[in-house]
């Protein structure tokens, strides 16, 4: 059976949830092999094994992480030549898509982004994508080269499987092109210790209606009661009320949680682009004509400053917490 390469998303070996999802999808197509770039393989190994990774190609040369995306594309391209995988799967993060883009050009392969499902039928890999804000479901195939597919986090449930996660050392001689964009600094601005936005099962978002940065504590309190991540509209991030990394929408994150709660958000098309495929949508807005109500499963017309704290109380009470 041909191998399927998946690129591990991790922070110093802490494996992101999407990696398990990629391994699960890979197993449908062939034998899952993980590609691990950077430090922390020992930390990551158990998780990769528990999702069925048979081999793990480990590239821990710090040079690979010193430049923007191109080195990883060169590494994957070399692996594609070496092992002729049935497909290469990456997460649909900004970097994941860009690595996929460069790999596609390098290896003469077609690329599909933002897949929400994957199937293999007599050797052909077919990806499902939801386009135009979820209004159309498309099934596409790669017709040339090795299918390179990026998968939207939270689209499928990761299943447990047993793999050996055997370490295979790999390295690559970087070209001048790969080292053209050097990362000289990394600045972390995020403050919250909550679930990560793109991976959370529940997201509570606040918009201009929240009114100020201080008032975001109301949103955070509900999020904590529900065990949710906090999101924000562009109006809220632009005003500096919440860090940009929490922006949901066209230029922010695309989220697809089980439950999305929008408080004080009008539902502009650019915001919808990032949350429209959420399974259940709830909105609290004082304007009954706000476009967000076109999307909701349950909507409340009312003042969020009163409704949200009251809701937080009731959620806590039902959960039996403090």
């Amino acid at each position, binding site marked *: 059976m041909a191998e399927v390469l998946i690129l591990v998303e991790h922070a110093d070996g802490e494996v992101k949830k999407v990696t398990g999802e990629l391994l699960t999808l890979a197993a449908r197509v062939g034998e899952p092999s993980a590609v691990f770039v950077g430090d922390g393989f020992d930390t990551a190994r158990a998780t990769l094994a528990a999702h069925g990774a048979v081999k793990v190609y480990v590239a821990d040369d710090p040079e690979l992480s010193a430049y*923007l*995306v*191109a080195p990883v594309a060169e590494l994957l391209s070399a692996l594609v030549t070496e092992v002729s995988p049935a497909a290469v799967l990456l997460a649909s993060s*900004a970097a994941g*898509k*860009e*690595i*996929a*883009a*460069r790999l*596609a*050009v390098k290896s*003469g392969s*077609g*690329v599909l*982004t933002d897949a929400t499902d994957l199937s293999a039928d007599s050797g052909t890999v*077919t990806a499902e994508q939801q*386009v135009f804000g979820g*209004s*159309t479901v*498309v*099934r*596409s*195939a*790669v*017709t*040339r*080269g090795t299918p390179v597919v990026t998968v939207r986090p939270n689209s499928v449930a990761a299943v447990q499987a047993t793999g050996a996660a055997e370490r295979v050392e790999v390295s690559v001689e970087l070209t001048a*092109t790969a080292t*053209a*964009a050097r*990362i*000289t*600094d*990394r*600045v972390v*601005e*995020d403050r919250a210790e909550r679930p*990560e936005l793109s991976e959370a099962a529940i997201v509570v978002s606040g918009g201009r209606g929240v009114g100020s940065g201080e008032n975001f504590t109301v949103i955070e309190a509900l999020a904590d009661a529900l065990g949710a991540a906090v999101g924000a509209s562009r109006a809220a991030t632009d005003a500096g009320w919440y860090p940009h*990394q929490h922006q949901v929408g*066209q*230029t922010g994150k695309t989220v697809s949680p089980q*439950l999305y709660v929008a408080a004080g958000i009008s539902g502009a*098309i650019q915001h919808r*682009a990032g949350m429209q495929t959420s399974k259940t*949508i*709830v909105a609290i807005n004082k304007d*009954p004509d706000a476009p967000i*109500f076109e*999307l909701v*499963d*349950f*909507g*409340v*017309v*009312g003042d969020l400053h009163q409704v949200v704290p*009251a*809701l937080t109380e*009731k*959620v806590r009470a039902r959960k039996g917490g403090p």
Partner: protein
Amino acid sequence: MNIVVCVKQVPDTWSEKRLDPEDSTLDREATDPVMNEMDEYAVEEALRLQETHGGEVTILCMGPDSATQTVRKALSMGGDRAVHVVDDALHGSDAVATSLVLARAIETIDAVDLVLLGSESSDARMSVVPAMLAERLGRAQLTFAKEVTVDGPTVTIKRLTDDGYQVVEGTTPAVVSVVEKINEPRYPSFKGIMSAKKKPVQTYAVADLGIDPGEVGLSGAWTSVESFELAPPRESGRVVTDDGNGADRLAEKLVEFLASKKFV
């Protein structure tokens, strides 16, 4: 400093987009075309860089005849000249082919120091063309920039990331894509609109760029749509309004709904 800005014409963000049942490509007839919003930020950034560093700004667009509208809009914001690649053979091109056409078109322009793009098109939503272009041109990829500074041959950006930003540095010629945090695009002035009509627009067919028409368009695409269907429309939900009992009652109804879905 000479700058090329890539602009794409897309269906208006609010219009309903659909695929053509005949060939599974975007039905462009069905929608009002506009310049991809994010590309307006790229045009604006190019004009601001030109104000400090001088040089020429060339607008580059690959798209059907009707995309002339988008080319003119960019020129009326302030570009100096434009290159428009228009050819029926391009219909149905995928991202890999688009990046090939843009790369070849850029190579026809003299002494390019910077290629600016939006970080995402609102119809394809792939965010791959800038990276592909950097790969093809063998230039530094400086993408998702919320800030760009040019100092001699050094180009530095702040790249948005999941938890903050990265400072990324390269040398000209470089490929830069921008996010909407970077600036506030100007509106074309009346004078700008009038003078845009006189600015030179060079059109190319794909063969003029040394590309075999079979390499692009639907037939040359490396991906294909096998089938598509409309997703079942969302069932319209329940909306409750204050019945006089205030927020507490509303919150009670909401928590009951959440409980019915097992979220609490």
